């Protein structure tokens, strides 16, 4: 399965790592918190791709399961951080409802 057509996977891995470095530099530089979240989200997507391509590169197809789990965790983390940065807490509706009852 691996290296059946030259340096295909190596090129893809190098490009993905360069992109991750660029996203990381934006996460360090970013003036607002949303720039940092954007860079973090991009970094997470690129990590999923990196795991998938590395699984093919090393001939280990079980890496695909890790990539799936990482994609799920990344999405949940992004939404949680965004919800926090927008409402100030993670369960604003629940808090408001309980405050109304009390």
């Amino acid at each position, binding site marked *: 399965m691996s290296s059946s057509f030259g340096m*295909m996977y190596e090129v893809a891995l190098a490009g993905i790592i*360069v992109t991750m470095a*660029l996203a990381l530099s934006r996460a360090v530089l970013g003036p607002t918190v*949303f720039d940092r979240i954007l860079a973090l*989200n991009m970094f997470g997507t690129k990590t999923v*791709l990196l795991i998938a391509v590395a699984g093919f590169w090393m001939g280990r*197809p079980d890496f*695909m399961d890790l990539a*799936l789990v990482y994609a799920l965790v990344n999405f949940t983390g992004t939404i949680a951080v965004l919800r926090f*940065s927008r409402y100030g807490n993670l369960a604003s509706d629940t808090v408001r409802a309980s405050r109304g009852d009390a």
Partner: protein
Amino acid sequence: MWVLNASCWGLLGLGTFLCVIGGIGIVRFPEFYARTHAASITDTMGAGLILTGLMGQALLPLVEHGWAVLETPTPNPLLLCFKVALLGIFILLTSPTSGHALVKAAYARGVAVNPQAGEHDGSH
């Protein structure tokens, strides 16, 4: 099967190219919403192309050796292809969603939309 291999090469290379463009865009664009544009579009497209290329590579043993490869103890090409497709569908669903949520949260928090707009609008 050199045709499948060559198209996988093309898809992987194009996807990697788009990823690097997105990385350059996220560093070089001047304001937040432009950076979101660069990041989310190339994210979705680059990931889709790379994963399509990987799907082709996953199906390669099946194309080369026929259905007999399913009875050997090697990993099942169909299952591998299904997992990569699942990954692609998931990224295709979540990447625009998180981009949308990000822009909505930033707009609600008052991140300015295009600070230079006043210099270009209304002059014509």
